[in-house]
């Protein structure tokens, strides 16, 4: 079985990448598996300056999923480069930085800091975070803004692959994917969380201090698959599939509809070794899908009747 995937200038030993915000900086999971075995690690969203994030409570459990409104708490890009990156096995596993900023220009500056870092394999541009009040979803819901941010990041990326992470909270995700492609993105990743909400009838208050938050987990997998399917029809650049993946079968479903690789998010909370177990289980799932390599399966969905 050939688990390798190559796309957008990346060569990954398998298609399993851990999703931003759900795997910390990778280091938190060293007790639970050999992180060098992962196809890639997208680190927690980084901003130019440190951010304290949103007030508590920030998370709520929902049926087959969860809401979060962390608000991109992070130590800032410089602390990441200084304190975390050197500890990560970046020669063996693609370390992907996830970028958050509140203006086109700030996205450029942030990119500039990371562009020169050998340990950073690619940049994932988060134009889709629903949990911040400036920027965030505003960018991700407007194709024109997506294009502008993409152009800016691409300009400052010094050749590093640029992946634009899209929001599902839009009428037409194909348009958004297309905007990223037009802006020069090397790949798109989708989906970020669905905008959701939970309330407590006892206290009559929202369960998140931020009122609304992002829905993730198995609950959203059908929406994610549909978005990847639509994006695959809209663009030619590679796609990273994200949303509700908890098993090797789930991962292959995204490959089948056209993804080049996948990101595993909330599943890391089911149990902290879940991403490793998905990798272990890929060969068995590939037998089921009757394919010898990931390439062989990619985009072979048969929609004829």
């Amino acid at each position: 079985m050939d688990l390798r995937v190559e796309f957008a200038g990346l060569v990954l030993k398998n298609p399993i990448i851990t999703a931003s915000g759900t795997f910390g900086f990778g280091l938190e999971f060293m007790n639970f598996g050999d992180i060098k075995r992962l196809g890639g690690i997208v680190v927690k969203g980084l901003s130019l300056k440190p951010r304290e994030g949103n007030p508590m409570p920030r998370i709520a459990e929902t049926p087959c999923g969860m809401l979060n409104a962390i608000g991109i708490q992070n130590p800032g890009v410089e602390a990441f480069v200084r304190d975390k990156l050197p500890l990560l096995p970046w020669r063996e596993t693609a370390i992907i930085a996830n970028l958050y900023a509140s203006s086109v220009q700030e996205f450029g500056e942030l990119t500039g800091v990371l562009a020169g870092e050998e340990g950073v394999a690619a940049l994932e541009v988060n134009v889709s975070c629903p949990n911040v009040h400036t920027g965030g979803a505003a960018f991700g819901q407007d194709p024109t803004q997506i294009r502008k941010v993409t152009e800016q990041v691409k300009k400052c990326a010094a050749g590093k692959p640029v992946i634009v992470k899209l929001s599902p909270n839009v009428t037409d995700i194909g348009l958004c994917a297309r905007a990223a492609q037009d802006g020069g993105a090397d790949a798109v990743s989708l989906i970020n969380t669905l905008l959701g909400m939970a309330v407590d009838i006892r206290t009559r208050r929202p369960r998140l201090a931020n009122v609304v938050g992002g829905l993730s987990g198995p609950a959203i997998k059908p929406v994610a698959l549909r978005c990847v399917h639509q994006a695959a029809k809209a663009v030619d650049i590679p796609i990273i599939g994200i949303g509700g993946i908890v098993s090797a079968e789930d991962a292959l479903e995204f490959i089948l509809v056209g993804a080049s690789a996948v990101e595993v998010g909330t599943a890391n909370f089911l149990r902290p070794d879940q991403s490793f177990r998905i990798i272990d289980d890929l060969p068995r799932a590939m037998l089921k899908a009757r394919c010898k390599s990931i390439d062989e399966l990619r985009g072979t969905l048969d929609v004829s009747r």
Partner: protein
Amino acid sequence: MVVRNCREVKVRELRFLGAWDGPSDFVELTLENPGWDGYRPGQFAMLRPSGWGLDLTWGRPLSISRADAESVTFFFQVVGRGTERMAALKAGDAIIIWGPLGNGFSAPPDTPTTLLAGGMGLAPFRGYIERHPTPEFLRLVFAHRPDLDCYPYAAMSEKVRAEEVRERTPDDLPVVIERIETAVRETANGLVLACGPTPFLKTVQQAARTHGVRAELSLESRMACGVGACLGCVCKDGGDKHVQVCARGPVFKADDVRL
């Protein structure tokens, strides 16, 4: 007391050995030994019964109540869907578990130490008392609402000086607060360790500050990962920075945390 050995912290699937047969909302869950003899009381684990499907997304954090060579024991109250399903487990059922997580309480051997437990906050002190090298230095003060029989208090009070105070109605609250404050004050040159609901911890923190007593508080928070990755469980530290309760706590020095 052995300091946390990181190589122990991994995911295991354990068998449930049997339940304590007390009042049904209060459950003692004993699992086969995961090799946690060296855990530090105050540490916790994340538990997820193998039979859960996907509809409960997260594991559930529970303090390690006690551990010996054969088994590890948790003590919990049924308060929602997760604990309800855990209470319905049958002997032989499997549970996914990762831990020991977080830090634990200090256990200086020759310091007068007052253990302040509110409700289920009693859980970690069971192992604390069992493992403490000099239990004669320990004093337990236990504040509770349900009947005392719901808790493993009797067994604990055989080993250390112990007293309990019950809040039967909200009218009893001032008495409870008074007892907590007194206990803190009386530990002037010693150490106060507290575990319980947030209002309880606030009382302890306030009293410790007022009387200049060294104190450690074990915090509760909703947790998704339990390992410091999701940033869902944070509290504010002394410098108003958000820190993870799971990884930087759950036990904090009283001065290092804003409640």
